[in-house]
């Protein structure tokens, strides 16, 4: 009789453990190369910023930020790009900006991060270093996508089992959200040192351009922290 009571208790413990650890899908959102040892600081360049920024729900943003709906995509992404680069340059004073064409001339490929998470981007060819005016920058941060929206999360964009789901039209928004994907590229050895998909949720009541700036800065900060934490030191 005691044995069966013990068994019952064990079963309950297992069930609770399952709920706590989440037997549902769990994601790993970043991937480090085994030889990613040191975070680049003064040798970092950035590319992809010209085309990565995308604004979703542009009509909503146009209304809230009081911008002409025809120009909101261009203006808001320009604003975010600048805020992002400003923040990145604050963190990496020697940051060099490369034109997108440095990598977009290579075919688009997908890179596996987790079982169901893949990022898409342009990666330089094996054996070919990206050149910047006669010299090859040692490390390049390739920004693949920088999606600005409201109440979006990365699962919906990057889990291939969920990407076809349509979300309901919403009237209210609780968060200003940013989903971004990037790769730290070792340009000398042509290998992806660190790739990640990040997400920023910034609570909003009445959205202003300042909210945009804060959220974008937070995204830039996340990149910095993740690049640091991803290194196999």
């Amino acid at each position, binding site marked *: 009789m005691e044995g069966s009571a013990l068994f019952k208790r064990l079963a309950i413990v297992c069930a609770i453990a399952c709920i706590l650890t989440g037997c549902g899908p769990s994601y790993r959102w970043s991937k480090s*190369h*085994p*030889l990613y040892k040191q975070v680049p600081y003064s040798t970092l360049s950035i590319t992809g910023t010209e085309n990565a920024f995308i604004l979703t729900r542009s009509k909503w943003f146009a209304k809230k930020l009081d911008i002409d709906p025809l120009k909101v995509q261009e203006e808001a992404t320009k604003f975010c790009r600048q805020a992002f680069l400003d923040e990145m340059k604050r963190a990496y004073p020697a940051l060099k900006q490369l034109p997108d064409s440095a990598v977009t001339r290579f*075919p688009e*490929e997908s890179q596996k991060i987790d079982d169901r998470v893949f990022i898409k981007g342009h*990666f330089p*060819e*094996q*054996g*070919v270093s990206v050149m910047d005016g006669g010299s090859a920058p040692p490390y390049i941060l390739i920004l693949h996508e920088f999606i600005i929206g409201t109440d979006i999360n990365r699962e919906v964009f990057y889990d291939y089992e969920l990407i076809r789901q349509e979300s309901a039209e919403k009237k209210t928004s609780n968060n200003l959200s940013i989903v971004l994907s990037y790769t730290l590229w070792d340009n*000398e*050895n*042509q*290998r992806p040192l660190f790739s990640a998909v990040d997400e920023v949720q910034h609570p909003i009541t009445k959205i202003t351009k300042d909210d945009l700036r804060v959220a974008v800065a937070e995204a830039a900060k996340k990149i910095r922290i993740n690049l640091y934490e991803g290194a196999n030191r």
Partner: protein
Amino acid sequence: MKHISFAILLVVGLAAHALAGDIYFNKHPVLWENPDILIWTPDAELPIDPKELCLSLKRVNSGIGEPKCRIFGEWERDSIAMHYANWLKKNIDPKLGEEYLHIRHPALMAKVQSIEDNIVLYLADNGNKVSVAIFDETSTNPKVVGTVTKTNDKIALGDEIADTFFSGKTKRRLSKEERQKLLDEPDEFYQEVPAFRAWAGVSIGYSQAHIPLTPDDWTESHTKSKVRNYRVTKDSVSLWNFIEDDDPLLSVHVGGIWYGFIGLELIYRFAKHKVKTDERDSVYEELDHWNFYQHEVGLNAMFARSYAIKKWLDIDLFAFLGFQYSFYVEDIALKEEVEKPSKAYNVRIRFEEAYKGGLIGGGAQFVFFKHYGIALRTGISSRGRDMYVDPTPDAAAAPSIIGGSTIDWFASVGLEYHWSL
């Protein structure tokens, strides 16, 4: 003296080991007999001599036949292949598995797939070592990666490469027609589940009243009961009050399954059960033996799921649910010297003509080479009578019904022959 020779042996062994190269990973490419080895390097100068490598291969591996070694000019003239070759030179590292050395360029991937049955041997000078990788048509990752110590002696280097990377068992190289046939063959794991599969088999097993993992006292009152005076027991609900429950079982099965999913199975089961006569009762002194032969005929519905584990092995897991009729044939005899049986013998208990009951359980069929099966079955079977009949005026006078509900657990292992349509 013994110690010294052992030490020498150890030193020689260690030296040989140090001389042999390091393998970072090995996914075991096929080593063909009489192979064509295409040597590919990003360096201006080849660290080995192709002819000498061939001789080394023949020295190291007697099964290799007549290897042909040449520089892989087609790839050395191709800029995409050379980009990758240069890249690989920088990226071969003991920490990197094959997935980190994956060829990404589609044009080179296509080239790898058309290597056919040639072996591409990649060599790159990395300072004091020579990096080695082997490619074949089956993968766009290198199949083996490692290093050997660099020496200027091209013969020694060839020996070392041959010893480290080409010492495995060789396989006969297929002719063009054989390769084509192999390509056209369906995948061994791709097979359609047959529309109908039938089997017939016999099995032996064991049954007992006590169902494993249930409390003993569920059955104890029945199994411990004995028969006194040819008919007196504690109760008569279960047949296990009268006869032994733990006996071997023999069964015959004929069945079929549609689409590997739903099936029917006809079974016949036989067992011999001894009556549990109470030996303290002197009335049995006249008795020679008293047994009941249990014959059961049943029909099961089955639900199965098939797993193709190997080309020669399919495993079907199934659950079944069915009904059965049980017949008990009495076999009783008195001792030869007894002339007239006792009164109690004449009014001894009699079982019903037939009992009906159910079967529930599960099992697995391991089918080898599509025909020869080993089946394991376990389950619970019951047999009884409808106890809730309307009382008749002479119910009190009628004999009580024996075996209202008799349950047992069984397990069996059998041999079967399978056919598929």
